[in-house]
């Protein structure tokens, strides 16, 4: 059969115009010294990359990003499995009601989630309750690093745990009933069944691996929630602040008047970030069982 290549032309055109073209130009810009004070866009070599690798602020941002990526994705995974177990062990009616409730956060704009979990939203009421309501005399100090890092991870997990839940529910459904029946005959407890049947099936599934990889690629460019926290913590004019992910760092370099619009440096960071997400995508393509058939 003849492949209708004409059908691919509009799609390819957009891929080149909106994706590959701008990326190539970004790469060229990253090789130049382009900024507000130096309008020359001519490539001069890899010096931006070399300078970046010895930049303490960049490494700090990488560390913060890595912490948030692994923390958030792990939390999503755990909460997702927990929600999936609750859903699959319920009756039909409860299942449809509660899974509808659980997927709500996925529809909420990440920037709104940044507002939802902000110090003066949830913690305003919670702290009032702790301090005055229950007269405990303690409150949760959202300006402590441990608290706000956890809160950014919680916000991210709040949005994305439902996705992991949906994928995990599909995996649990595909486990043959006989395995559980055999386990019940042998008198296995619920925990043994989870530990010996359900969890290994989840872990071994390409579906969960691919989903986790894609979530990691997404989390590497995490922007909205840390961006909101920059304001909640009053760090929005400080380069290399404690909640600066790589994306937030680029935003600060871009919008601050302290620096002369260092386009070359920003694109250098963007290209490094792109290399990370491109490698993750290659892994996804490799591990996915159906994308290429």
């Amino acid at each position: 059969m003849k492949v209708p290549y004409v059908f691919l032309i509009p799609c390819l055109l957009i891929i080149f115009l909106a994706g590959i073209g701008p990326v190539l130009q970004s790469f060229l810009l990253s090789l130049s010294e382009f900024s507000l004070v130096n309008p020359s866009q001519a490539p001069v070599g890899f010096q931006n990359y070399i300078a970046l690798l010895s930049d303490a602020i960049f490494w700090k941002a990488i560390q913060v990003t890595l912490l948030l990526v692994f923390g958030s994705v792990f939390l999503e995974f755990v909460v997702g499995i927990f929600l999936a177990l609750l859903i699959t062990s319920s009756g039909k009616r409860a299942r449809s009601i509660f899974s509808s409730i659980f997927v709500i956060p996925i529809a909420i704009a990440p920037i709104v989630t940044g507002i939802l979990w902000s110090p003066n939203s949830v913690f305003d009421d919670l702290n009032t309750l702790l301090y005055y309501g229950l007269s405990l005399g303690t409150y949760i100090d959202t300006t402590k690093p441990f608290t706000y890092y956890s809160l950014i991870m919680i916000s991210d997990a709040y949005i994305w745990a439902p996705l992991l839940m949906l994928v995990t529910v599909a995996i649990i459904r595909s486990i043959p009933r006989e395995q559980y029946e055999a386990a019940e005959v042998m008198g296995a407890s619920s925990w043994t069944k989870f530990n010996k049947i359900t969890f290994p099936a989840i872990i071994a599934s390409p579906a969960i691996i691919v989903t986790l990889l894609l979530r990691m690629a997404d989390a590497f460019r995490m922007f909205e929630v840390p961006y909101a926290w920059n304001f909640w913590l009053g760090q929005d004019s400080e380069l290399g602040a404690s909640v600066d992910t790589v994306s937030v760092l680029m935003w600060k370099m871009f919008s601050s008047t302290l620096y002369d619009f260092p386009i070359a440096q920003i694109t250098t960071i963007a290209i490094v970030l792109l290399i990370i997400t491109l490698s993750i995508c290659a892994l996804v393509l490799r591990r996915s069982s159906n994308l290429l058939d």
Partner: protein
Amino acid sequence: MMSQTNKNNSRYIRYILLISASLWVLWPISIMIEEGFRVDIGPLFSGRGASFVGEFFQGQGGIRFTTIEYVKALQIEAYPRLLVNSVIIAVSSVIVAILAGLPAGFTLAMYKFRGKAFITYALLAMRTISPFAVLLPFFLIYGRLGLFDTYQGMAFIYLIINLPIITMMMRGFFKDIPKEIFEAAFMSGASDSYILRKVALPLALPGLAAAAVFAFVGTWNEFFYALFLTGTVTKTVSRGVWSGFSESIESFKILEFDELNAGGTLAIIPAVILSLAVQRYLARGFTLGAEEQR
């Protein structure tokens, strides 16, 4: 007898867990809605509100239920304009994405060919790309072409998000159709475009609706490109929720928490309703179908 009690117990525990998980989901949202009404539980206990949770909090909340923020948002201020902007940009971008993505999705589902891995990989990469990797070229080019802060310019930018979603979701929906149907059509010598229009599309129409709704919600919720590339003309709702909205769309306003919450509440209502309508396909939308097992 013993096992009966055990069963009941585990059922109670399950319901307690289900309800607490629902609270975890709904509690922050309910606080946002309630703060939009300017309700604050602080004074109930302390008479003055908790003011130690960060320098932004005003500490003067109270139980003074008022719909003023919602009314203000919808009537006095430029909020409706933001909603209209978001709809215009999202709908036009999704339509272009469908025109380009539908035939491409069909080809990806039906044929094996050289370059298939390249297209799939490019779409995956576009879905995960850091906006900064394309932002600065767009900034320079849009400035030169006068596309900055225009509906066409924004609709084009959002193709980066929408094209992979539409193409790959449609590919999945075409794959879901039994192969025999297509074999019969191909045997009878029908052309590809005839099969796409008369055989595949009618069967995948519910899927197309789901993909379009999913892409619409994604564009509605998008913040990053809106933050950098929209201005006084095309400012979208997710940007407006953050940076404030006032009398006219042109004026910037210092952020106030009641307003932020009222705006946020109004912004998530359509997104939540639409997402619940397509919840069966959410996983396919977010992973472009990579997570499915065939």
